[in-house]
């Protein structure tokens, strides 16, 4: 009888444990990485379906109720930001490759690692339980930013679910960040200036998480108290809503929430995109047969982005009535962060220059990342100027900007990572032809969806509207709205190619191994 090997504390995979012990309650960082990736894949499917439903609603305005639209929008944003774009690049691919790339046996705290996953899993379950809420509304209608007083006085039980879910998420994300940081600090014999850029970006994103998730957690708890314990952190006096004066709250500040939320919210976009930048740098270097150009400046740019990212949250609040002089500082700082981003772009281009370019699928996705990141990033030059933001704020211009710069580009980095590391994870390659078809449709689709949105924003089309039929000046845009919806349906459908490729490739490899 073979010796029964237990799951070891340093995260090594056991040989003959039960399925449950090996794949469910495991402490192996590689399996935990798979768990995170599966969770993200599950979340992204729901998020894609919701986005298609939203686009259809904008074409056939009578199809669903406005609050159903708003709750779908909130759920789409929350799932994408937290459960896909925060989890997959960092907790998913990071968990797998970060320890390997610094020569560690696993994450520093394997049990904590498993605990983080189950906390995040619980958080997702709670968020999704909103689907069964009253009036067919899929949870909160306040948007992923949940601005009070609306979120306190004008939203249903879905928002409590949202608050509990995200509070738990913060704890999971925080423990995960601690684990990355201590794994990094515990590693021996590493030369800082020789580390892969992926390691630098995962580490930097972890430090950012450590700084900002506690702030979000405290804000969420305060908002929960405002809703359920009649405290007044965010609710001012003399509120009159729904035909009655609210006497249970007084002297709070709605702007305090905005500060706390965006102090988290802005660095969050760098938590999302830094791992993507690291992955892109790595892949560009491999498929050009060259080391990344000016490696040191890449490291410095990563750190600079993280540092500057912490001090420019106010650019989300230019129109909020923030002290106008403060906006000047936030505006200048915002345009300053474009400099390290430009350094990265320059170095990526210089790496491609005269490279021996192999256009395999991971490389295509990485080139797509650079293209989308630059296109989306450039419009930040408009939004970062407080004067210009006053017109573009809360229009489709912003929707286009952030979807390109930290939505689609981060997703492209995930596609790149999956196809690039697939051989390491599964022992065989993904299908190249299917991968390329998926790349070209998605790349064209993303541009087809988001370029017209800039035009809509310039005309003044507000975001978070479930219908545009009330306004004369938006009627001319109806053709563009339809065009974007068609592009969205096609692009969303094309994602099935990626899923088919993924599942089919895994199945094919497993079958081959059995033989």
């Amino acid at each position, binding site marked *: 009888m073979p010796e029964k090997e237990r799951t070891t504390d340093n995260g090594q995979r056991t040989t003959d444990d039960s399925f449950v012990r090996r794949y469910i309650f495991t402490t192996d960082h590689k399996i935990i990485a798979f768990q995170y990736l599966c969770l993200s894949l599950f979340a992204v499917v729901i998020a894609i379906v919701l986005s298609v439903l939203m686009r259809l609603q904008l074409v056939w305005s009578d199809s669903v109720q406005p609050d159903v639209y708003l709750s779908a929008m909130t759920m789409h944003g929350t799932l994408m930001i937290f459960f896909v774009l925060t989890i997959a690049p960092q907790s998913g691919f990071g968990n797998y490759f970060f320890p390997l790339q610094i020569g560690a046996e696993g994450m520093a705290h394997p049990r904590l690692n498993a605990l983080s996953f189950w906390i995040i899993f619980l958080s997702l379950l709670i968020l999704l339980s909103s689907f069964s809420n009253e009036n067919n509304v899929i949870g909160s209608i306040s948007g992923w930013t949940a601005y009070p007083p609306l979120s306190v006085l004008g939203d249903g039980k879905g928002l409590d679910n949202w608050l509990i879910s995200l509070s738990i998420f913060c704890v999971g994300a925080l423990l995960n960040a601690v684990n990355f940081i201590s794994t990094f600090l515990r590693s021996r014999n590493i030369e800082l200036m020789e580390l892969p850029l992926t390691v630098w970006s995962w580490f930097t994103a972890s430090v950012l998480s450590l700084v900002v998730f506690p702030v979000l957690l405290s804000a969420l708890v305060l908002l929960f108290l405002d809703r359920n314990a009649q405290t007044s952190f965010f609710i001012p006096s003399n509120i009159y809503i729904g035909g009655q004066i609210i006497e249970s709250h007084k002297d709070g500040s709605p702007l305090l929430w905005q500060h706390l939320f965006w102090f988290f919210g802005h660095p969050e976009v760098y938590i999302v995109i830094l791992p993507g930048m690291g992955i892109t740098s790595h892949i560009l270097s491999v498929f050009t047969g060259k080391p990344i150009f000016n490696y040191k400046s890449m490291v410095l740019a990563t750190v600079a982005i993280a540092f500057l990212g912490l001090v420019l949250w106010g650019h989300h609040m230019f129109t909020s009535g923030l002290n106008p002089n403060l906006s000047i500082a936030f505006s200048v700082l915002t345009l300053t962060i*474009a400099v390290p981003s430009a350094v990265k772009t320059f170095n990526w281009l210089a790496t491609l220059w005269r*490279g021996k370019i192999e256009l395999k699928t991971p490389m295509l996705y990485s080139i797509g990342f650079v293209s989308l990141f630059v296109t989306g990033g450039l419009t930040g030059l408009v939004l970062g100027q407080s*004067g210009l933001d006053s017109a573009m704020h809360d229009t489709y211009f912003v929707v286009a900007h952030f979807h390109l710069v930290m939505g689609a580009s981060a997703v492209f980095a995930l596609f790149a990572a999956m196809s690039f590391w697939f051989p390491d994870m599964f022992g065989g390659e993904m299908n190249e032809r299917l991968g390329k078809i998926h790349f070209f449709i998605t790349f064209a689709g993303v541009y087809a969806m988001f370029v017209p949105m800039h035009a809509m924003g310039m005309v003044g089309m507000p975001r978070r509207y479930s219908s545009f039929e009330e306004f004369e000046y938006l009627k001319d845009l109806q053709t563009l709205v339809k065009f974007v919806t068609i592009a969205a349906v096609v692009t969303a459908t094309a994602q099935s190619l990626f899923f088919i490729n993924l599942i089919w490739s895994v199945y094919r490899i497993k079958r081959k191994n059995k033989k």
Partner: protein
Amino acid sequence: MPRSISDFGATFDRQFYLTMFVIGVAFVAVQCCLGIFIWRSSEGKITKDNLRVEIVWVLFTAVVFLMLALLGQRVWAKLISKPNTENVFKVEVTAQQFQWNFHYAGIDHLFGTTKTELINDAETNYIGLDRNEEKAKDDILSSVLVVPVNRVVELTMKSHDVTHSFWVAPLRFKQDIVPGVTTKISFKPTQTGKYEIACAELCGAQHYKMKSYLLVVSEDEVNKLMQLSQDEFQTTVTTLLR
């Protein structure tokens, strides 16, 4: 973009198109480089690190971006500057789910006091105006914003429920209206006409329906309107909106 109808719009448009020009050049340059470098794949000669090029690039981008940021401050300064004239047309704006309320001072140029406890939706006193006050007698409440052309307009804005945002696309600015905070903003309309007012901050399920009109008319017309009673004002404005 819709044609600008205020003096702020002209300043805005200059900076906007300058920024879009810089963006356009950078966009074309980067995407072309991507295309050309991929197209002209070669034997993969290693490009040596070159700190000097990087420093030049950092300085170049820093100068361009900071120039934009500094020039952009002129737009911001124009938007936030207080009117430097006494001749200001003042309107008090109260936003609520899902309608706009505009409060005019009438002929005495004095606004009546508003109190939350006096709000009476049944009597269409949506802002709680104390009608017993002497200075409130000639005040006019309307869901339409009527302002004179070529004169500085100052809006004093507040909300009595959730956060809203005042947005008229041809005016080129929006201003959030956060409950508990009174915000002032001024602009000078330069074109007469009828324009749509939208809410640009998510304020609930009917957010997309929170609509009203901005009517820019001649100064004489505004003066005449201010002398009317509440009902006469409403009838005249309804005619003007047609």
